[in-house]
């Protein structure tokens, strides 16, 4: 079973503020890590490989230093890794990113299952996995809780409105995995060392051969035109007083609401 896992390097800290004059983002640290939900996708991929043999290939698109996250993925247990990096690809929105990832997967080889984390901690769009599936013309199930393989098909579980939905799909298929559905294994000192020396496939646009107007900012239908500090439109009315006074107010609010139909 050949599995591709799409992952994203996200900032370790979401502690980002906005310069009030230039509106530029000010980051407290530039350190990156694998997006948490992507670790769940990697774990789900490795479990499938352990049961049914095959390999797990981690893909990421980003600056050169995203290589660090790919090394982490190899240390955790991915078999191969592919870094997609090129200045021309920078600044892309989800459409441009998905188009690029789809092309990279296509030229890398055939896969039975494409996996990704459901949402990233930074942009949290949850779109790229489904868009890649569309570009590759694959069936896709978003935000799943589990996947196994039986009767020649992927058996997928997904939670939806307090129901457990069971789906079945022949490969090749694509899924995005919810955060927290399994416990990602950790790298050991030994696997970390081994990962250091593994070869990583690097694709620039020379390999991908995508037209300039299809990638990066030019290939993005949307543009980020501004960033600003959120003005919290606080909806909540703050209850004031001593804990005792507040407790009394809470009791009253709750008893009024209970009395309504």
């Amino acid at each position, binding site marked *: 079973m050949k599995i591709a896992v799409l992952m994203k390097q996200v900032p370790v800290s979401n502690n980002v503020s906005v310069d009030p004059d230039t509106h530029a983002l000010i980051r407290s640290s530039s350190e990156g890590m694998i997006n948490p939900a992507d670790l769940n996708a990697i774990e789900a991929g490795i479990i499938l490989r352990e049961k049914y043999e095959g390999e797990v290939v981690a893909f990421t698109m980003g600056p050169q230093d995203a290589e660090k996250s790919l090394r982490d993925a190899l240390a955790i247990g991915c078999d191969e890794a592919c870094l997609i990096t090129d200045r021309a690809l920078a600044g892309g929105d989800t459409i441009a990113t998905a188009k690029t990832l789809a092309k990279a997967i296509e030229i890398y080889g055939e896969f039975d299952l494409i996996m990704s984390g459901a949402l990233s901690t930074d942009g949290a*769009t949850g779109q790229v996995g489904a868009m890649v*599936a569309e570009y590759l013309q694959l069936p*896709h199930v*978003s935000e799943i809780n589990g996947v196994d393989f039986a009767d020649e098909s992927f058996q997928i579980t997904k*939670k939806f409105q307090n129901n*457990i939905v069971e789906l079945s799909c022949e490969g090749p298929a694509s899924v995005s995995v919810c955060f*927290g559905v399994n416990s990602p294994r950790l790298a050991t000192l030994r696997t970390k060392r081994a990962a250091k020396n593994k070869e990583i496939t690097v694709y620039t646009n020379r390999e991908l051969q995508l037209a300039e107007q299809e990638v990066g900012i030019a290939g993005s239908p949307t543009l980020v035109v501004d960033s600003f500090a959120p003005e919290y439109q606080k909806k*909540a009315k703050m209850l004031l007083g001593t*804990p005792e006074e507040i407790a009394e107010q809470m009791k009253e609010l709750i008893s009024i609401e209970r009395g309504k139909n």
Partner: protein
Amino acid sequence: MANGICIFAENYKNTLEPVVGELMSVANSIKASTGEKIIAIVLSSNCDNLVESLKALGVDEILAVNTVEDTSFKDEINSHIIAEMIRKIEPTSVLIPATMTGRSIFSRVAAKLNCGLTADCTEVVVDKNENGNYYIKQNKPSFGENVMVTIITKEECYPQMLTIRPGVYPSVEASEQNVATVVNYMTEVEIPKSKLQVVGITKAQASTESIVGAEVVVVGGRGATGENFELLNRFASKLEAAIGGTRPLIDEGVIPFENQIGQTGCTVRPKICVSLGVSGAIQHTEGIKDTKLFIAVNTDESAPIYNLADYGVALDFKSVLEAYLGD
């Protein structure tokens, strides 16, 4: 010439999702500037009820597709039909609920139409560009809730498609007086096949049912462990409330996974919700819907939970609960 504001009438089992009423508020605010008509797009194995519900929300037009079979979860089919509907309507904007279903289907629609999809907008602002044309500033939180970004769609890539975070905009009131709706059925669209099969749908385990159906829910976040959990537990018994939790509480093993509220857990719609030490990250707040009374207790006055809650208490929840319980 593109014209019209589309709203996606998300539904499940032929019932309209309440969030569609919230999209209608946003559509009305765009219409107030641009004067465009509002067109609901709906697809279902049986659109009749849905069409009636949509009329009551006051949409100008409805474009409906009867899919014959239930196509829930089959994004390939749904995205194909919706892309065809949008091609037919040629709207300037499409509003979609930022839900699992909305994200999942419209990611594919955006790829098909090569238009963008702005995720999880909390603010929609109509402005005019230098050519005198209206466009939408799509404001959304990024990096957790620490930064707001404004996103716009390039004019050559219209429609402007955006998902709207549920619970931010108030819903319009449904009224039977709204009768001026034009209803069109689109019959010429081909309904493709999907390799994806729904094998079964079962209710989540019984243990979650107590929390899912509960009228009163107490939610614990980081810090609600150890003796604090003891306190939370007594508070919940006093209110006859079910206990839910965010991830830290699940990780600590204090409450079972089934009682996790949010994106990976369950969705609750209690009448009364009291959250204790919950910061309010979207992963969690997506799981709390339609509350009538929501009181949040969190020492951090800038916590995003206060954008959702009706009342806030910026104190350590321990002191508040002790006072409440008369300790």
